[in-house]
């Protein structure tokens, strides 16, 4: 029998909605090199297209090594993962991402069927976990969460 309550599911759903909105708008902003690392901790493990990075410094290195982005989230889903309280959350995101200037940045003579510059489909999976060292700062906050695992791939 499941140990997850209706309440767990609702909090998880809202958290995922809030998180995806916040994360990708931060990712797409000019200050992402400073702001995105706040979502991670020293023990976070992430991969970007199979390239591994670790911790806050790893994220900072990754953020400084890719062009500007514009993400469009097309679907996302979230489960509380059974086994701990408050639960960790598994979040998967599917959408498209444009890098650099997009198709408008392609040279004038680019053939019409060339895909470069056009948005790529991406798939990103996160595990969000409660931070035992960061007490909730606002009333009603169950816990402060951070990204403990993150796997991204371009898939289309």
């Amino acid at each position, binding site marked *: *029998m499941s140990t*997850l309550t209706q309440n767990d599911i*609702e*909090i998880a*759903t*809202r*958290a*995922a909605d809030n998180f995806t909105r*916040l994360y990708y708008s931060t990712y797409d902003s000019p200050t992402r090199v*400073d702001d995105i690392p706040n979502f991670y901790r020293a*023990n976070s493990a992430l*991969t970007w*297209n*199979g*390239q591994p990075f670790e911790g806050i410094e790893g994220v900072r*290195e*990754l953020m*400084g*090594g*890719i*062009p500007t982005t514009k993400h469009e989230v097309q*679907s*996302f*889903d979230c489960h*509380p*993962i*059974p086994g*701990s309280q408050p639960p960790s959350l*598994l979040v*998967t995101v*599917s*959408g498209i991402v444009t*890098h*650099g200037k997009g198709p408008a*940045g*392609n040279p004038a003579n680019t053939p019409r*069927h060339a*895909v*470069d*510059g*056009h*948005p*790529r*489909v991406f*798939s990103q*999976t996160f*595990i969000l*976990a409660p931070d035992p060292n960061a007490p909730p*700062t*606002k*009333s*009603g*906050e*169950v816990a*402060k969460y951070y990204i403990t*695992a993150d796997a991204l*791939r*371009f*898939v*289309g």
Partner: protein
Amino acid sequence: MIDLWKEWVGRRWNAEARFLNLERMNEDEWLKRHRLLSPASPDAKKEPQVVFKIASKLKPEVETISLAHNNLVSGAMMTTLAHYLPKLANLSLEGNRLSGWKELDNISGRRGRLSQLRELVLVGNPIRELEYKNNRAQQYKSEIARRFPSLEILDGEPIARVGFDAPALSTSTSTRPHNMLSTFAFQMQPSLIAGVDGPMVSNFLGRYFPLYDQQRGALLDVYAPDATFSFSANTAIPPRARIEGIHVSKEFPNQRKLEWAPWLSGGLGGSRNLGRMTGSLQKVTQSLHLGGEQAVKAMADLPATRHDITGAPEKFCVDAFPIYQGEKPNLLVTVHGQFTELPSEGIRSFDRSFVLAVAPEGSRARQNDWQVMILSDQLVIRAYSSFEAWRPGPMRVQAGDLLPTPALLEVLSAVPKPQRYLMQDLILRTRLNLQYAEDCLKNNDWDLERAMANFEQVKANLPADAFLPENAFMS
């Protein structure tokens, strides 16, 4: 006329508290004396928009608005609120006559969304009072919290939520130049299976997918008793696949026979795209399958499939690494690939994320020779995109971009980071050799944009040997 409205808004504005008090507008004597129609009147047409537009120009920015006691029956008056005041933090609708969820659509739906709302008051509205009277207080709170994910306080009570550390409005002031590269510093890498026994992952996948194709019921063994499963259909048309004409090419003759309906409403609860569940809370719950039995039942109601995970490994990509929840490590396994959907024989793409635990001794999984047990399983199905997307190697940002050869990357690997990435970017954009690229960046304080501008100024006067030969690049 505008000036009268501005004057009136000024009378209702408390700049120090950043509070615009728009309560009891229908009884406002000043409006009556100046023959202005109350924005809350049922006859009001442009008045609300005029007021919100004026409000959007107030300094400092409006943080709180009260629309209390305005006899509002519908949410129509708020149509332009989210447009003019998207950062509104606190809103009171106390003492109005809002009675249905759709009255909140203008501020919590696709037409308009107060996405930073922290506090909302609906006390005194039928939408709240009736729910409380009928013992549905919890459902009311859930529905509101779902519509306003940023909400922290409802009717004076905090809402249970989780917080994240990133600032909502960036306040970071870095003194380093924010160099944005125009190229990728990193390449596409092959499947990454790290920190875990390689065969454990491939054995799991090699057994899971054939069973998923031929005998889904048998998968009950590998799901934990309290496992979670859901699936989402991302029905958007993938841009690159569309440009390549995949869906109309002869190589894929059955794509036009595919339909989304079995995925959107099948599987005993339908596709779970949380971003699109503005319907009832019921759908959010029904589409999440709890426990192995429910998971397998739901899967049985999804279209039949044929994966070819062992036959064509390049068509699949796996990233797997350990994750730590408390003391015991679990395993995150993400698989990207394709399957043939039956009976149409059309091809779909999918992404599947598993959280796996080591199967405990005596567990059903262990008894059936599975080394692992599935705790969570999320499946995404998408229109087909080619596996070329994850072909290892360097990637272009724009058409015509030069790519580094392995030899060039080898030479660059001697340069410490982060200078290495800046030099690589400059070299790919200018063809300068390493020495000139380094000098150019050094002379411009390692600011990429300044270095590029500098290069443009001097490039006509640079000797031929300032540049790398053609064979340093791939195009």
